């Protein structure tokens, strides 16, 4: 291609600058990823050793917990979800389903399945939320079950209603399409037992696609047949090890997944509950809790329970995955924007750094990655790139990402005492190349364009196609 000398010089200078930026960016990210995956694996292996030598709490301690299940058009899964919650190996808990004005038969299915009776239960409105339309209860089951049907207000609003009506000092938020493992409650309360100042604890969310669950126990585990879901299994493992465990060490976790987290009710209530104007209400709440506790000089901890497991449905189509990631990215943007005061603010210590990580490597990364691809294309077009070198570099970088992903995957499989077939091992090895080299870039593009027109949907529930989970 022919271009003028001065334009060529300009592009050359610019691309050199971009080059340096990318080298620095990738080195920092890789070092961070490496450190976090290694320290995460070490922590998981140590945990395995702790369990082996019974450094665990193995008596019947019971912290009372309210499980809040916000539901919107969940008629396909809600009854099974509640049934699975009734099999949990824990005594002192209650189940609260909040039907956020579903247009399907969510409430009716529950009322019929569990023979629930309408009640006039007054609800203390400690956190503001949309008005309730009806409350149904039954105490005829292993634990009390309550259904609140309310005016539609979004997931955060439904969770706030759940907090208001809950009886116990701790609550768990979860999704209506998720299944808690039989021991998940006793595991997630362990941080509360271990430390007095724990205000929240996050559990581990794993895709349940391809998993057979009986009475909350995994009976058969293999990677899903669906390639998109299988790639997400690897991605979940990597992201869990890549940031959460490391940040947890410094009390700087900014995310507890909305699919499974434990919270101290009075602190959440004092902080104002979930923000119903944010799509990423789960992250926003955790960031808000940090802010609230630090500004009020509270001694507090937000922890991870690495062995408390929740199985959740991962999207199986690119369309659903795109919707989900778009929503997550908007949520991330809203949360970061709302708490921008934390950025590099020394008062927040490690949390300010954690914020910076999310800002640069989560929020800006799709823009940076897409920009990187475009500049690579321009460099190639004007013959400013050493193609063989670039290929070697990309292969090494992809290989690096793949090995870290596989480390996270195998570490998780080993500490969970899961048996996987050699076919699954091969599948994981192959898929991680596709995930790092393909899906990641597709998702980068999706996330980079996520903010276009987000305002219109600010209160909507994220919908992906629901399937019955393979539970008995």
């Amino acid at each position: 291609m022919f271009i003028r000398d001065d334009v060529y010089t300009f592009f050359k200078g610019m691309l050199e600058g971009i080059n340096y930026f990318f080298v620095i960016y990738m080195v920092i990210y890789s070092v961070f990823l490496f450190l976090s995956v290694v320290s995460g694996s070490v922590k998981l292996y140590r945990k395995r050793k702790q369990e082996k030598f019974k450094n665990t709490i193995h008596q019947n301690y019971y912290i009372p917990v309210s499980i809040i299940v916000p539901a919107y058009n969940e008629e396909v899964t809600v009854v099974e979800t509640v049934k699975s919650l009734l099999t949990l190996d824990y005594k002192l808990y209650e189940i609260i389903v909040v039907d956020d004005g579903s247009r399907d038969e969510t409430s009716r299915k529950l009322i019929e399945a569990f023979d629930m009776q309408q009640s006039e239960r007054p609800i203390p409105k400690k956190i503001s939320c949309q008005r309730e339309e009806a409350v149904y209860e039954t105490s005829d089951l292993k634990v009390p079950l309550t259904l609140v049907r309310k005016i539609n207000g979004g997931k955060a609003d439904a969770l706030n209603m759940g907090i208001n009506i809950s009886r116990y000092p701790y609550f768990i938020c979860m999704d209506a399409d998720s299944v808690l493992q039989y021991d998940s409650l006793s595991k997630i309360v362990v941080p509360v037992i271990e430390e007095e100042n724990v205000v929240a604890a996050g559990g581990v969310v794993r895709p349940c696609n391809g998993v057979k669950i009986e009475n909350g126990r995994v009976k058969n585990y293999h990677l899903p047949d669906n390639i998109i879901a299988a790639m997400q299994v690897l991605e979940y493992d990597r992201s869990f090890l890549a940031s959460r465990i490391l940040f947890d060490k410094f009390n700087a976790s900014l995310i507890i997944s909305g699919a499974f987290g434990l919270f101290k009710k009075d602190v959440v209530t004092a902080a104002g509950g979930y923000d119903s104007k944010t799509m990423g209400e789960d992250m926003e709440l955790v960031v808000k809790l940090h802010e609230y506790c630090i500004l009020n000089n509270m001694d507090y901890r937000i922890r991870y329970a690495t062995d408390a497991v929740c199985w959740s449905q991962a999207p199986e189509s690119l369309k659903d995955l795109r919707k989900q990631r778009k929503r997550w990215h908007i949520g991330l943007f809203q949360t970061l924007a709302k708490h921008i005061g934390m950025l590099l603010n020394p008062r927040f210590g490690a949390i300010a750094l954690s914020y910076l990580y999310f800002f640069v490597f989560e929020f800006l990364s799709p823009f940076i990655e897409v920009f990187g691809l475009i500049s690579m294309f321009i460099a190639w077009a004007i013959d400013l790139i050493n193609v063989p070198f670039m290929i070697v570099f990309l292969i090494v970088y992809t290989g690096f990402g793949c090995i870290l992903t596989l480390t996270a995957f195998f570490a998780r499989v080993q500490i969970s005492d899961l048996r996987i077939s050699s076919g699954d091992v091969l599948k994981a090895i192959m898929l991680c190349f596709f995930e790092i080299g393909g899906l990641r870039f597709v998702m980068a593009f999706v996330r980079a364009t996520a903010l276009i027109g987000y305002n219109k949907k600010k209160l909507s529930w994220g919908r992906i196609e629901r399937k019955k989970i393979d539970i008995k």
Partner: protein
Amino acid sequence: MKIENLIYLFLAVLVSMIVFNIVCIFVFSFQDRRLNKNNNRFAELIRKQMETGIDDKHKKYMYRKLKNIDNLQAFDLALEGLMKEDDEMAKRYLESLTPVFVDLTSVYIRKQELQAAYFPYIIKKYSLFYMTNNNAVISTLHELVRHSSLYSRENALQALYSIGNAEAVVNALKIINDKDYYHNKRLLCDGLLTFAGDEEELSEKLWSHYHVFNENMQLVILEYFRFSEEGYKYTDQMFEVMVQSKRNSELYYSCIRYFGKYPDLRAYRQIIKSVSDEDKSGFECKTIAASALSIYDYPQTKEVLINLLHDRNWYVRNNAAASLSKLGVDYFDLIDIFDGDDRYAREIAAYSLKRNIVKENEHVHKG
């Protein structure tokens, strides 16, 4: 730095990670196979000894073997299996192996905290020193209670509860108290409730040392008496604590909860006084008291509870309504509430009465 060097660095990290993964996979699979092998070997050996009777040679052999924690784990698994086969014989075997475990205490106390914590777990699991006063064992367990690891402490406490020596348990609590360790109150209270020895002796010792402890530990003791089967015997002491405690303290609330289970007229008057004093009683006190009053079926109780239905706090109103239901009040007793202007009081009273009816129906249905 040249860009090629960066690639070499990435490659080096990549290779080391692959090696790390492969080593981990092999180590874990080797450990699992070795555990299984040792488990089978121990099972065979123990079975043989159970049939022929334990000799000194076997004891020496077991001491040598069980010094290694991996062997202790395999032994644990083997024994667990044998107990399912013949519980009595396995217990007799363990009993004759007690001297070996006494000797092992000095070995395990020297191990890292994570490994040391396994030994008291074994003591508790098999009730190895039940009702014995072996000083070496007890002082080793006390040493473990001094560890900063929660799990060492907890396992050691569990072992002490299983031995059933009240003095040793109280001394362990004193260690935690003096070291000012955080040890969850619920864990301690639930642990005390599993004490295998003479409960009365434990209760006496806890009371006699009550004032030595800090407030957290005192709270554990009070909660223990609330849940203990012997709890009803200590109303005098509890009342004394109640009178001495500040009205807004956790100790005071704990006493109210206790007297919400074991009725006492003196305490009743105190509770009524607490909730009636608008200036001094906070919502926490009123919430707990409203619940506790449900076992005092006196006219004054109903009057106080009806009054609490107008409280600003939802939990106070809720507990007052629940207590009124338990005391058997009906619509006519609450006519003033239903005819009154206070919507919140009306709603909670209606809900509580209706709920009571539903519950009764459910009982009849089940009955």
